[in-house]
């Protein structure tokens, strides 16, 4: 079985390196298909492992090599395939494979075709390192690896100012989180002396509570950066500058869920500190409604989906924070399927509309793009949590978890968010595919994407429909590693009532959206209200960051540059150089070229040397 681990892990790397060989050449379709094939190989290996772990109920553990062995510090390059990581591996590889195939169509006319596939496969490799690692150090390598690939892919169209800016923003925001993760790792190492998951989690019980709180908070800070939780959330919406399949893979299905994965993986730690868990849940619920409210008014197709991702990540953190770890993982998996397919669909629409992103300039595309329209509607239904699609099962469990923990406020927030989610999802669908046509036929000629592009979306769409039906086997499977959780506090009938009112609010949201946008949407006055302005300016948070963080920081940097750098450091180094230079000028006349004076100097030096030797020997 070990060979499957290596195949699953290294096939994407091989694909990436091969594609990298062609990176400076013009488009060669071969790289696209080759990387996709390698991803498919990795997917089959992962699914094989899933099957193996499922049937044999064992976990696999391999040590690739010893990485750092210094004194007592022993960090191997080890990988573990247990119930949690194999689920992550399967989700990552399935989504990645489909995204790779979709990208062949999406990037068809791009100059950087080969480079793109090299980056994309490198990302998958890093993500697999992240989820398969058996210790925090290797996890951190994967963590940084996905960060770098994310930076490369957001800034893929580097000639665009906005793309490079967004790439840098994402990278720098993540640095803040990564610092937290690193400090958390240091604390763990100092107090336990190891970074292996099994050793660390076995010894956590012996540590001080305040220390555990520190570790928990610092690790969660890392998770906040990667999963774009408030206040480090602004990068995710800006990351939409990258190619759309990248958004589907990295900024919806995989990388942003790494934070959730970290919390789920460290469940032993967070079980010991329920107060931190509750804070995580509260922050998650806040982000859920906060992001959903911004999605309500945005007119950029990709940003709406990005805010929706943010909001769903909030849901996952609520579940993880309240101790329902398998629920978080379950929502992570279902969300990966329907969100990636939503993004891929958005990619098709963008292609059809010549990269137009403004949903006000679309409408009536259903007639021209039937397949995309149907798939996106299904994915939106799944996102809204309509029975019997995947989102229904996972989201409902999260609401149940909140209710079960007596966190009525959290439950209320999430309940409202469920309604908002349904509303903005269908606002998007209505504005793009239905309603009246808002573009001229002369300017745009929308057309359906190629068949293989649609074919790549279908498996994901099918999973978005059926993934929820496997809830019971999923629970049974992952709770072998994760703590079990059941809605023990609430009666069976209450649970049913909860399901009903949640479904009601979701259906209500959809109904409002469909009804409103069929009849032309909201009036123009709404756009002049202060609340609309607040939402469409993202609560003025980017502005706030710019005015209170970026600009003062810039000013400080300029000051340091002008005063410390130029006047202190440069001046002292330059002074030294000038001194040496002047000395040289002064000493130059020695070289008169006159042999006689040279000889004299030579003799003088000789005598000086002799005298020196004499003095030394006497002393």
């Amino acid at each position: 079985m070990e060979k499957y681990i290596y195949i699953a892990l290294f096939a994407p790397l091989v694909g990436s390196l091969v594609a990298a060989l062609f990176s400076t050449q013009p488009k060669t379709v071969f790289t696209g298909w080759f990387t996709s094939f390698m991803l498919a190989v990795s997917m089959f290996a992962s699914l094989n492992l899933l099957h193996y772990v499922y049937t044999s109920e064992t976990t696999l553990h391999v040590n690739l090599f010893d990485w750092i062995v210094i004194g007592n510090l022993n960090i191997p390059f080890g990988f573990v395939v247990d119930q949690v990581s194999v689920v992550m591996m399967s989700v990552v590889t399935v989504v990645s494979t489909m995204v790779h195939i979709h990208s062949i169509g999406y990037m068809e006319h791009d100059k950087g075709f080969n480079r793109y596939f090299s980056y994309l496969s490198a990302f998958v490799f890093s993500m697999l390192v992240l989820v398969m690692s058996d210790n925090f150090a290797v996890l951190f390598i994967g963590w940084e690896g996905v960060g770098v690939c994310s930076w490369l892919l957001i800034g893929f169209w580097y000639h665009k100012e906005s793309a490079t800016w967004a790439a840098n923003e994402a990278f720098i925001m993540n640095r803040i989180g990564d610092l937290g993760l690193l400090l958390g790792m240091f604390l763990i190492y100092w107090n336990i002396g190891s970074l292996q998951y099994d050793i660390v989690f076995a010894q956590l019980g012996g540590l001080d509570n305040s220390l555990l709180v520190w570790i928990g908070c610092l690790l969660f800070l890392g998770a906040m950066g990667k999963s774009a939780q408030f206040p480090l959330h602004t990068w995710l919406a800006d990351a939409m500058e990258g190619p759309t399949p990248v958004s589907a893979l990295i900024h919806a299905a995989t990388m942003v869920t790494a934070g959730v994965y970290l919390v789920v993986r460290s469940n032993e730690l967070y079980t010991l500190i329920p107060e931190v868990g509750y804070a995580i849940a509260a922050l998650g619920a806040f982000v859920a409604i906060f992001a959903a409210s911004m999605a309500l008014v945005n007119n950029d197709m990709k940003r709406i989906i990005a805010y929706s991702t943010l909001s769903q990540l909030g849901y996952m953190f609520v579940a993880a924070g309240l101790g329902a770890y398998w629920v978080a993982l379950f929502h992570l998996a279902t969300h990966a399927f329907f969100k990636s397919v939503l993004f891929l669909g958005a990619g098709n629409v963008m292609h059809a509309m010549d990269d137009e992103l403004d949903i006000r300039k679309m409408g009536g595309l259903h007639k021209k793009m039937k397949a995309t329209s149907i798939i996106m509607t299904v994915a939106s239904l799944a996102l809204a949590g309509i029975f019997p699609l995947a989102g229904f099962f996972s989201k409902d469990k999260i609401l149940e978890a909140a209710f079960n923990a007596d966190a009525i406020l959290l439950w209320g927030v999430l309940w409202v968010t469920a309604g908002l989610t349904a509303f903005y999802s269908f606002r998007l669908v209505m504005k793009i595919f239905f309603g009246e046509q808002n573009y001229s036929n002369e300017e745009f000629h929308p057309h359906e994407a190629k068949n293989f592009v649609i074919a790549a979306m279908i498996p994901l769409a099918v999973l978005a429909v059926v993934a929820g039906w496997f809830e019971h086997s999923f629970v049974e499977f992952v709770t072998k590693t994760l703590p079990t959780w059941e809605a023990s506090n609430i009666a069976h009938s209450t649970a049913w009532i909860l399901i009903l009112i949640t479904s009601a609010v979701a259906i209500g949201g959809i109904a409002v959206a469909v009804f409103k946008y069929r009849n032309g949407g909201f009036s123009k006055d709404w756009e002049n209200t202060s609340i609309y302005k607040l939402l469409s300016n993202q609560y003025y948070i980017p502005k706030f960051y710019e005015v209170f963080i970026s600009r003062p920081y810039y000013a400080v940097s300029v000051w340091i540059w002008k005063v410390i750098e130029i006047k202190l450091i440069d001046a002292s180094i330059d002074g030294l150089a000038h001194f040496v230079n002047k000395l040289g000028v002064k000493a130059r006349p020695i070289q008169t070229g006159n042999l006689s004076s040279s000889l004299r100097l030579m003799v003088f030096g000789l005598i000086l040397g002799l005298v020196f030797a004499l003095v030394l020997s006497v002393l």
Partner: protein
Amino acid sequence: MTLNAYLILSTILFCIGLIGVIKRKNVLMLFFSTEIMLNAVNVGLAAISKFHGDLSGQIFAFFIIAVAASEVAIGLGLLILWYKRTGSINLDDIAKMRG
């Protein structure tokens, strides 16, 4: 005669040569001076060799004579060329390496 007498002679010869090297402006004279210095060393080597009963000093002196002869041959050859080209063998005129 004692060893010291020879060594003093050697030192005096060496100093004469050295002063010649410093003072003289004629390159030919410079060669003479270096020859004096080399032979001063030879006197010292031969004397010490004799007094210690060790032949290697004298053998070394022979080597020096051989090397000095070839050095003078090459040096004089160059000097003649230089004289043909510039018409002068004054040391102060040879200042092409001025920094």
